[in-house]
C-alpha cells in the first residue's frame, strides 16, 4: 500500500512540475467553461444567478399565488418576471414594465426569456369550483428552452392539484363526520369513501398546462441568463477536462516508458499490481483535482449545483473512476506519444458532446440521447442535472452512480489483463 501511494504522489509531483499542465488544469477549463456557458445560456445576463421566465398572472388570486410559490419551490433558480425583477432590471424589461402577452411572446422568441407562463384570469375561481382550467406555457423550440423549466411548471401544477384534492376531500369529509360516531365496520367504510372521493377529484385534474411552442428563431440575440448555461457547462466542462487530464495520463505512461523510469520501476522490487494501482491512483487523483478546480470556479461564479453535496461528490468520484479505468483499458497498448495524445483528444472530443457535456442532451433527438449513454459523461450529466435542475438528492443519482461504477469495473478488468511493460 505504501508503495502504491508513493508512486501516486510522485506522479502528481511530476505532473504539477510542468507549467503547461497547471495551465491546462486551471486556465483552459476556466475559459472553456465560460465560452460554453455563454453559448448555452445565450449570453451574459448580469450577475443574477437565476433562470429568467416571464410569468403573467392575470388572476392575482390566492391560488395563483400558491401556484407561483410551488413553481419556485420546484426550481429555486427561476426568476419570474416581472414580479421578481430587481433594481438591476435582471428581467431586462426596459420600458416594458407592464408586460403584455404579446411583448412576452416576443421576448421568448427573441431569446430574452426561456419561457412564458400565463395564468388565465379566473384561475382561482375555476380551481375552487372544480372547473377545468388551463395554464399556458410558451417556449422556444431550441436549446434555450431547457426541459427543466417545463418540469417545474408540471410539478407546480401537480402540487396545486394535490392541494385542491386534499382541501376538497377534507371539507367533504368534515361535513359528513358531524354527529356520526363510527364503529369498526363504519371506519373501513369511511376510509374507502374518502379514497374514492379523492380519486374522483384527482381524475378531474382541474389544472392542466397547455404547451405552446413559438417558431424557432435563427439567432437569439437577446441576453439570457448565463447562469443557466453555467449550471450545465460547469459540470459538462468538468467532465470533459477530467477526460483530457486523465486520458492525458496515457501519454504519461508512454513517456515514462520512453524515459525508462517505468522500466526502472519494474526492475525494483515492486509488484505489477502495486505498479498499476499506483499509476491508477495518481490518474484518479489528478482527475478529481481537475474536477475540483472546475467546480471551485463554478462556486465562485455562484453556480447552483443543487442541494445535495454528498450526491454530487459521489457522481464526481464514480465518473472520474470510470474515466481512469477507461484510460488504462486503452492506454496500456499504446506505442508512442502521438498515438496516446491523438487517442486522448479523439476520445475526449467524442465522448464529451455525445454525453451532453457541451449542450444538454434534452435538445438532441431521442436516439442520440440513447447512443449518448455509452459515454460515461451522459450518466454523470444525468446525475448533475438531477441535482442542479430538479433539486434531486442521493436517491435520484443512484442509477447514474451505479452505472458508472459498473463501467469502472469492466474497464479495470480489461486494463489489468492487458498491462505490459515490454
Amino acid at each position, binding site marked *: 500500500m*505504501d*508503495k502504491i501511494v*508513493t*508512486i501516486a504522489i*510522485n506522479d502528481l*509531483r*511530476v505532473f504539477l*512540475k*510542468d507549467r503547461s499542465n497547471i495551465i491546462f488544469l486551471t486556465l483552459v477549463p476556466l475559459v472553456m467553461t465560460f465560452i460554453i456557458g455563454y453559448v448555452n445560456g445565450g449570453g451574459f445576463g448580469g450577475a443574477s444567478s437565476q433562470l429568467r421566465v416571464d410569468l403573467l398572472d392575470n388572476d392575482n388570486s390566492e391560488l395563483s399565488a400558491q401556484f407561483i410559490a410551488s413553481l419556485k419551490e420546484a426550481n429555486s433558480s427561476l426568476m419570474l418576471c416581472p414580479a421578481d425583477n430587481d433594481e438591476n432590471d435582471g428581467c431586462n424589461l426596459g420600458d416594458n414594465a407592464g408586460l403584455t402577452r404579446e411583448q412576452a411572446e416576443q421576448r421568448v422568441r427573441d431569446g430574452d426569456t426561456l419561457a412564458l407562463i400565463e395564468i388565465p384570469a379566473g384561475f382561482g375561481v375555476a380551481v375552487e369550483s372544480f372547473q377545468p382550467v388551463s395554464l399556458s406555457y410558451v417556449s422556444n423550440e431550441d436549446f434555450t428552452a431547457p426541459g427543466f423549466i417545463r418540469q417545474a411548471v408540471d410539478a407546480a401544477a401537480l402540487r396545486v392539484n394535490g392541494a385542491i384534492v386534499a382541501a376538497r376531500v377534507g371539507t367533504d369529509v368534515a361535513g359528513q363526520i358531524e354527529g356520526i360516531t363510527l364503529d369498526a365496520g363504519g371506519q373501513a367504510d369511511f376510509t374507502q369513501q374518502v379514497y374514492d372521493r379523492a380519486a374522483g377529484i384527482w381524475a378531474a385534474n382541474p389544472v392542466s398546462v397547455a404547451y405552446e411552442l413559438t417558431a424557432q428563431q435563427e439567432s437569439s440575440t437577446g441576453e439570457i441568463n448565463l447562469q443557466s448555461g453555467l449550471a450545465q457547462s460547469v459540470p459538462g466542462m468538468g467532465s470533459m477536462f477530467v477526460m483530457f487530464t486523465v486520458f492525458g495520463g496515457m501519454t504519461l505512461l508512454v513517456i515514462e516508458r520512453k*524515459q*525508462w*523510469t517505468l*522500466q*526502472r*520501476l*519494474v*526492475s*525494483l*522490487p*515492486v*509488484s505489477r499490481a502495486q505498479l498499476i494501482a499506483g499509476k491508477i491512483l495518481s490518474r484518479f487523483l489528478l482527475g478529481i483535482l481537475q474536477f475540483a478546480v472546475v467546480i471551485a470556479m463554478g462556486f465562485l461564479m455562484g453556480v447552483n449545483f443543487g442541494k445535495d453535496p454528498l450526491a454530487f461528490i459521489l457522481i464526481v468520484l464514480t465518473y472520474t473512476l470510470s474515466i481512469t479505468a477507461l484510460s488504462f483499458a486503452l492506454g496500456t497498448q499504446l506505442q508512442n506519444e502521438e498515438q496516446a495524445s491523438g487517442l486522448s483528444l479523439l476520445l475526449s472530443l467524442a465522448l464529451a458532446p455525445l454525453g451532453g457535456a457541451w449542450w444538454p442532451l434534452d435538445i438532441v433527438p431521442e436516439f442520440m440521447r440513447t447512443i449518448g449513454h455509452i459515454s460515461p459523461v451522459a450518466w454523470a450529466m444525468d446525475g448533475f442535472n438531477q441535482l442542479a435542475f430538479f433539486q434531486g438528492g442521493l436517491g435520484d443519482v443512484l442509477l447514474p452512480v451505479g452505472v458508472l461504477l459498473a463501467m469502472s469495473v469492466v474497464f479495470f478488468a480489461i486494463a489489468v489483463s492487458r498491462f505490459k*511493460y*515490454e
Partner: protein
Amino acid sequence: MTNLVEVRGLVKTFKRRDGTEVRAVRGINLDIAQGEVFSLLGPNGAGKTTTISMISGLLSPTQGDATIGGFSITKQPMQAKKLLGVVPQEIALYPTLTARQNLDFFGKMAGLGGKELAKSVDEVLDFIDLKDRQNDRIDTFSGGMKRRVNIGVGLLHKPQLVYMDEPTVGIDPQSRRRILDTVVQLRDEYRMTVLYTTHLMEEAQELSNRVGIIDHGEIIALGTVGDLIQQIGEEDRLIFSVGEQDIDNGLLQQFEAIAGITKVTYQSRELNVAPGLEDSAELVIEKKSTGTMMAVRSGQVMDGEIVVYAKRGRKALPELLRLADDAGVNIFSVEVREPDLEAVFLHLTGRALRD
C-alpha cells in the same frame, strides 16, 4: 568462489509487427562469481541489453532461466530483484524532479524508508559527488552528472549485484574516467558484484575479471582477458601513419619479407567531396594524423595507414623504419598494439568490434 548469478539457456525472440522474428538472444549460459566484475562485450545489437533486461525482470525470457543469489528471476522475481541494482543504458530519471527527489522516490520503491532512506540517499550523493547539486532539477544537469545520478539510484539499497548497461555512452572522457573508477571502487571497496556491458574493448579489458564476448545473441568467447588473448596467439600490430603519401606496393613486400612478420596491409581513404563542391579548387579539412588543418584537393588520398602484424613486433621496428626511409616515405607516427580484445573479436568474427 560461489556464483551469484547463474544464467541457463536464456533465449529471447521478439516478434516484429510483420510477423517475422528477431532472435535477439539465442541460448546464453553464464556464471558470475561473487565479487567480480563481469563484462559482456559485443557490438551494437549483439543482445547485451536484451540479456540484461531478462536478468533484471524487464523482459520475460522466451526460454531458459537465471538465478540471482539462488532466486529464480521467473519464479521468485521479488526476492531476486531485492539483490539487484540496475543502472540502465538510458538516463532513467524524472527530468523535472531534483536529484534528491529522484533518489528518494526510487529508494522508497526499493523498500527503504525513514532514517535508513535519508542516510542512504546522503551516502549515495556523497559517492556520486553531487551533494551540492542535490536540490537541482535533473534537466539542469550535464550529461556526466545525469549519468552519475543514474548510477547512484541503482546503488541506493546496497545491492549485491549491480548491473550497468553501457554507462559511459555519450559522455566526455573525464566523466567516463570517473565512472570506470566507480566500477572498480564498487567491487574493491563495497564488495559488490558488477555485471557490465559495453561495446568498448578498452573498458572491458580494463575493468573486468572476466569477459563474455557476445555476438548475434550468443556468447562466442568467455574467460579472463588473458585467456581470451591467448586463444588467438600473441601477435602485435604495428600501425604506421603515412598521411597522404602514395605508398608503393614494393615497400609493403619488403616489409613482409622481414622475419617474424606475418601480414602487412595498407589502408587509406580518399577525400570525397560533397556533390556540387567538386570544382572548388581547394578545401580545408582537419588532418586526422596530426590534428592540424590542411588544404586538399578532391580525390586526394588521406590518412594512409600501413598495418604490420608481427610476433614480438617491437624488434622489427628499426628495420621497418629504415626501409621506409630508404623508400622516401615519411612516417608520421607509429603505434604498437599488443593483442587485445578487439583482435580477439576480429579473429572470432572476421569483423571489427566498431564500425
